């Protein structure tokens, strides 16, 4: 901040206005981004809340309150549960895969193949993915049949691809590659010299990881978890195509009210459910930011 010597009155005012100007001006740099997002994302989100605050079919309470009661609350919690589980497992396995890829860097072509496939797999979903698993492990699945030849009867063991565990398995198909892709640059950033330095100082593999590796990776791990959570939370096509159990998800139920064939006049309820989804994500995001601030202290 420049030191301004001002004669007479108005010193404080002028200094304050200079620093204010300097503080605000940098924010103009992100204006194009904010405008674009404002039009195409914020505005529709605001409309969602506007509809959510109205009532459904002339009932007294606004839709947003109705959407948090009874069976709707259950579906929101169910969605949160599914998303958290798949995000956690996806985070762990995805990071391990990324580590494996980086450590086998010298194998030519491997990393390129994995990156290429992961990018595509991370966006798979809906009917093709669901059907791939049905064709594998469904009642008439190829591997179900092969396993039964070896005496392993999946349905007798209580496994059905349309159960909760089946949905988790299918979700992992796109969660793991997404995490892998997100972690690769972060692991790349774990400079080799740090590891060598640690080894020189006598640190074991485990000590390196607990004191240097993990702390450095934590912000990316948390960010990845958040993204995976959001990814699973918003997904509907895959669960919908896989199993009627998918109708327990909030994202699927929104379709009943906004994109169905039978229910009419309840679109405010659909928007209210969407509003709650936004609220849940905001909470998750806040939690993540808090955790990251704590972990970033480690880095410095």
């Amino acid at each position: 901040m420049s030191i301004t010597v001002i004669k007479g009155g108005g010193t404080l005012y002028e200094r304050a206005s200079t620093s204010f100007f300097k503080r605000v001006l940098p924010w103009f740099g992100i204006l194009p981004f904010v405008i674009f997002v404002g039009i195409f994302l914020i505005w529709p989100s605001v409309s969602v809340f506007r509809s959510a605050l109205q009532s459904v079919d002339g009932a007294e309470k606004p839709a947003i309150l109705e959407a948090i009661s009874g069976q709707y609350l259950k579906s929101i919690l169910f969605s949160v549960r599914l998303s958290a589980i798949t995000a956690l497992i996806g985070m762990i396995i995805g990071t391990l895969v990324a580590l494996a890829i980086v450590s086998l860097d010298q194998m030519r072509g491997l990393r390129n193949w994995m990156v290429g496939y992961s990018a595509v797999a991370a966006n798979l979903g809906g009917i093709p993915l669901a059907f791939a698993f049905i064709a594998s492990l469904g009642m008439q699945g190829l591997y179900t049949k092969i396993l039964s030849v070896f005496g392993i009867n999946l349905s007798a063991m209580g496994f059905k691809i349309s159960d909760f565990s089946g949905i988790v398995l299918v979700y992992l198909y796109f969660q793991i590659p997404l995490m892998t892709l997100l972690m690769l640059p972060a692991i790349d950033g774990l400079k080799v010299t740090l590891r060598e330095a640690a080894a020189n100082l006598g640190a074991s593999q485990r000590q390196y990881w607990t004191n240097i590796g993990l702390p450095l990776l934590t912000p990316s791990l948390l960010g990845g978890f958040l993204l995976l959570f959001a990814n699973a939370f918003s997904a509907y096509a895959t669960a919908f195509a896989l199993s009627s159990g998918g109708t327990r998800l909030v994202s699927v139920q929104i379709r009943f009210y906004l994109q169905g064939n039978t229910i009419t006049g309840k679109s405010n309820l659909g928007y209210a459910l969407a509003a709650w989804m936004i609220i849940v994500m905001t909470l998750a995001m806040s939690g993540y930011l808090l955790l990251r601030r704590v972990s970033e202290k480690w880095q410095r």
Partner: protein
Amino acid sequence: MTKRNSWAKITLLLIGAFYALPMLAMARFSFQRMPVVKLGWSTLLDGWTIAPMVDAVTSARFLQASWLSLRLALLTVIISLAILVPTTVYVHVRLIKARAFIEFLSILPYVVPPIALVVGISGAMRSTVPGFLSNPFSLTPFYVIISLPFSFRSLDVGLSSIELKTLVEASRSLGAGWVRTVRSVILPNLRVGVINASFLTFAVVLGEFTIASLLLKFTLPAYMAEAQGNNPQGSFTVGLLLLVVSASLLGVVNRVTRKRGQEVQAIFL
């Protein structure tokens, strides 16, 4: 080191199997006209045919849909990068406080349902730019938004892993002008992030269905959905082809562009 390598190899083998097996089962369904209930040692080699794939791939509808999707994907990547790269670089160099805010904005597309996006925007559009939504490329801003979580995250992670602010300050204090700094310091270190962002955006656009169907645009996923009715096996073969071709293409691009990035990173160790 060999112990670590063998662990890594086993991990990759397992994950490879997990990725490949479901797709193989789908491929068997698509190329062999034999219900599993009738499948046995004697019928193992019966009913194999590529007819569904040929029908699907040679149809005019498929070609029309693919062409639109391809152009949409490219356009989305370009616009996405044009908006995001300057923004993320600027934030990392100059305005790190804004990062949390932008991060929140980048997660938001996940939870606004596509129908809300379409309905919310169409009202505003109709009064200002009426013909906009009829244009097939009107999908682009929507696609930029829905790929935002991936593209922002990729660029952000790439930039976070290097201390960009320090590097820029060092470069400036050594006398380099902004242009030189951008060219020699910032851009090379963006490479991995930009590549990842582009890949993911590309894949997102090729896989997006809801918005395209609501706005009645005939993209590749729309074709695949349409084909489910009269040629489901053909539809799946298109999906498999897309998988293999995209993955290979992205792998090749990664190979060609990554090498240089890696070297640059080593220099800045």
